[in-house]
């Protein structure tokens, strides 16, 4: 079952946030969505997850139409997102942050423990989620999203504010998660190095339009991308 969006256009009072954007992700695929600030990445994720309504275009999971459904129904259908702003339940323990979501599917504490292990949080299950170090908070947000057993996980800048070591750990974890669950991942990133190393395919947005798509090597050598995003030396952003 693929997650397919076609011809998405979102217009904020005359300002085109995204225009005619197509994106599709297959099971087990890791796709990177890159672009500068204001390129339309967040708008696209908001449309895919139901936070932004639009009448133009379509979003489908397999045969079922997602566009127009509320965010919670899309999440239950199997497309789950995380937020740049993390949005943990602070004041509540790490374990219960996951349990609150796991409860929905009737999974027991066993699956909470598995997720704690997977995301390297097993050493402090009883800490207040709000008091965790930043990198831990981001991993907890992913663990909580995984409690819904998504078919597709949309990660909004999961590495923001992480050190290079932490990013490397996150890379490994994401690939491992994909291998274990066979879910598709869409990685919305600013950090070009993270997406280059683990994504099989990249989609580059600029000014609300897709200016390039393809494997990391093709993107690196793409002139339009160099001009718009990578800078002429092709370095980081």
């Amino acid at each position, binding site marked *: 079952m693929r997650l397919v969006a076609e011809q998405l256009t979102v217009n904020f009072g005359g300002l085109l946030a995204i225009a005619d954007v197509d994106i599709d992700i297959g099971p087990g695929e890791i796709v990177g969505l890159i672009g500068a600030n204001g390129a339309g990445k967040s708008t696209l994720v908001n449309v895919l997850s139901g936070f932004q309504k639009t009448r133009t275009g379509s979003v489908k999971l397999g045969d079922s139409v997602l566009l127009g459904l509320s965010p919670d129904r899309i999440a239950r259908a199997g497309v789950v997102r995380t937020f740049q702003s993390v949005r943990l*339940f602070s004041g*509540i323990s790490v374990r219960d942050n996951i349990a*609150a*979501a796991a409860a*929905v599917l009737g999974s027991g504490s066993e699956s909470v423990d598995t997720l704690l292990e997977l995301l390297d949080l097993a050493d402090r299950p009883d800490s207040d989620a709000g008091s965790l170090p930043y990198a831990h908070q981001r991993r907890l947000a992913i663990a909580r999203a995984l409690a*819904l057993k998504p078919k597709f996980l949309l990660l909004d800048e999961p590495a923001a504010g992480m050190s290079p070591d932490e990013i490397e750990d996150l890379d490994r974890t994401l690939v491992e998660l994909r291998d274990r669950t066979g879910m598709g991942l869409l990685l919305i990133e600013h950090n070009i190095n993270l997406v280059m190393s683990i994504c099989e395919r990249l989609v580059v947005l600029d000014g609300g339009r897709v200016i390039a798509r393809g494997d990391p090597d093709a993107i690196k050598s793409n002139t339009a991308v160099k001009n718009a995003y990578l800078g002429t030396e092709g370095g980081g952003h």
Partner: protein
Amino acid sequence: MNFALQTAIDALSVGSIYALSALGIGLLFGIMRLINFAQSEFVTIGIYILMLSAGIWFPLAALGAICVVVVLALVVERLAFRPIRTADPATLLVTSFAVSYLLQYSLVLIFGARPIGLDILPDLARPFVIGSVRVPRIDIATIGATAVLLSAFALFLRKTRIGIEMRAAAVDFRMARLLGIRANRVIAVAFAMSGLLAAVVAILFAARTGVAAPTIGLELALVGFVATVIGGMGSLVGAVFGGLAVGVVTVLLQALLPPELRAYREAFVYIVVIAVLVLRPQGLFRGAAARERV
């Protein structure tokens, strides 16, 4: 010494009733940003049910009052608040006023506006005598019932699945929905719990005052609101301690103020409340709800 001990027990007992009132209000505010003025009628109707069931074996009458008030809370949620759940907090507030007045004047219509005496468990009025200290049984019952109820609530919120969901929803309702937590169920359970708390307050208050009147729940609900604000809107622990604090301050003022000033006790209580809010505008226990809701 005896005076101090008696005052302490009195303070704890009044504070307990206020704490339960505040918890019922804080619970709904935490989860749906609803300031539920109808909480006062939940208590009043509980007292009228007890009045109607005079002569019935007490545990049965108490159970009856609890059932009626819980069902009433659920019906109010379903008919009045569910349709406007996503509305602005101001709309919710005005709706709660409307529900409150509707229920209050229904009581006036049925029973009249005049207070009606009732006599549940007259034995409770008799004191325990320990040495030279006389402790009214009702105080012991109140403190005991509150302790049991609060412990049960804490356990429920920490250990059960729906309890964890409720706490998550209180921190970030939209995020909770996004994670698939069922809003209808969480909110219905919160209303049922606030109904249960109101019924217990009704039982304790009726046993203490022996009177049923259409506006009798008003003062309790008002103190409950004040207590949740002092505690920090959205913090349940804050609501409980806020309630206890208001009760303790009220009783202490009653005990310590010169007799000619006692009539103005409430004014002094609210001076203390204002002072607390000036010094800590976010309340004593700042809750998650105090932060901006996304």
